[in-house]
């Protein structure tokens, strides 16, 4: 395949309905978890000061929704290239140097992301085996632990796609791979 072809395929992939559907699903999860958090905490206040009832162990439910928010949020931000990075050196280099550095960083990133993904999968398998639960309600912690795994798997996926994009895309035209952190 020529690099034009690969770029075209990548664009097609990002416009394809499964890709977009995945993004929509992530957005819905983010919206619902944020709503849930605000609502539950609001309820706690209402119950404690108006109804004088203690919502025992409410934090255990809030934390489930929080973990999904954190990790789906993180993977969503990865798709949008919004994670924090230092662009100090990149800005000081000539264009060619920028490209080499970018691809070097991408490659290292992919390796680390894959290893992180492996660790997170081992983590969830261990979690299924020992089946920890919360102290108030005995809710299985797996409900929030798998958010970690899902998050790291999705992040690894997006990082791999980014590497391909940065390798094959023409430098500069649309800025991809140049100013990733600020888009």
């Amino acid at each position: 395949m020529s690099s034009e072809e690969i770029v075209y395929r990548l664009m097609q992939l990002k416009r394809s309905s499964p890709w977009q559907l995945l993004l929509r699903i992530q957005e819905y999860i983010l919206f619902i978890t944020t709503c849930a958090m605000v609502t539950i905490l609001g309820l706690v206040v209402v119950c404690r000061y108006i109804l004088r009832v203690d919502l025992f162990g409410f934090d255990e439910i809030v934390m489930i929704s929080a973990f999904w928010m954190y990790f789906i949020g993180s993977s969503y931000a990865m798709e949008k290239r919004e994670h924090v990075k230092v662009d100090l050196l990149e800005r000081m280099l000539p264009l060619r140097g920028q490209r080499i550095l970018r691809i070097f960083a991408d490659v290292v990133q992919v390796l680390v992301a894959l290893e992180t993904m492996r660790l997170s999968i081992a983590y969830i398998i261990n979690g299924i085996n020992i089946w920890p639960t919360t102290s108030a309600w005995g809710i299985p912690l797996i409900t929030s632990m798998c958010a970690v795994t899902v998050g790291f798997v999705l992040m690894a996926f997006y990082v791999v796609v980014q590497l391909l994009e940065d390798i094959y895309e023409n430098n500069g035209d649309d800025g991809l791979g140049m100013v990733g952190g600020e888009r």
Partner: protein
Amino acid sequence: ARKLKFYAPYPSDSYTSKALVDLVKMIKEKTDGEIDFKVFPSGQLCIYEDSIEEVRAGTIDASFTWLTKRYHPKLDIGNLPGLCTTGFPEYELMFLDPKSPFCKIIETYSNEAGFVSLGGWLDPRIGFILSKVPKNPKDNLKKNISLRVPAMPSVRDMATAMGYNTVTMDYSEVFSALQTGQIDGASNIPAEDAYLQARDMIKCFDANNMGSTPGWLIINKKLWESFGPKNQKIVQDCIAFQIKKWLPVARGTEKKYEDELEKHGVKVIRYSSEEAIKRSAEIRANVWPKYADTYGKDTLKVLEDAVVANQKKVLSGKK
């Protein structure tokens, strides 16, 4: 060889951590350096609850921790109220004697959960810190006082049975919430912490010892088996020796900080053995039956007998 990692929740200058440092030193000497632990104090390595799983997995080798039900549904049995309301004399009999029924129960559960129990360890006794002085602190009538409890069902039931309105919130929010008056008190706080962290916010320290929460020593199973019978015996003997050595310090510290609180103008509510035993019976009768399904009736019966026997010993010891 790499030093073995020993988890400790209290800061390095607390007597529980100092005693652990003494313990590992003694173990190293007695085993000619074969067993060499390093104590990581202040809960640096992780939160106490997760040290249990890390000991099981072997990423931490041993831990002084509080057992909760996170990794085994029954391991929080030590949180049942009223196990040692008279304080240290009962605490010694219930938790620090490796042959006690309670220690046998924990040994079984620990085994099921995949690690080895080494028995209880020195741990300050706990009371309630309160910014209001209750009119009727020693009985169980409604007090109209909101008390923060850790999110553990048996502790909540205990506080409710004692007449308090319970509030659950994160431990890190307790002291600021107390200061602003969002809560009127918090349960399960040692006198030392009450004095050092909250003396200016509270009016009353209720030294009821109703919550039990024993600090516990656990060790990785593979590691323990690798010690062999000889070194296992040495470890157990060292633990017994250090507990004996440090118990007076524990009692002294408790007394010292209760006195300091009083000097600071905080009302300290103390209980005679008779009062403590009476209230323990009331609270046990109220709370324990709710947990018959969790721990099994037989187990609760064994514990109940142990409590009654221990209390008898405490009373006769005084005479």
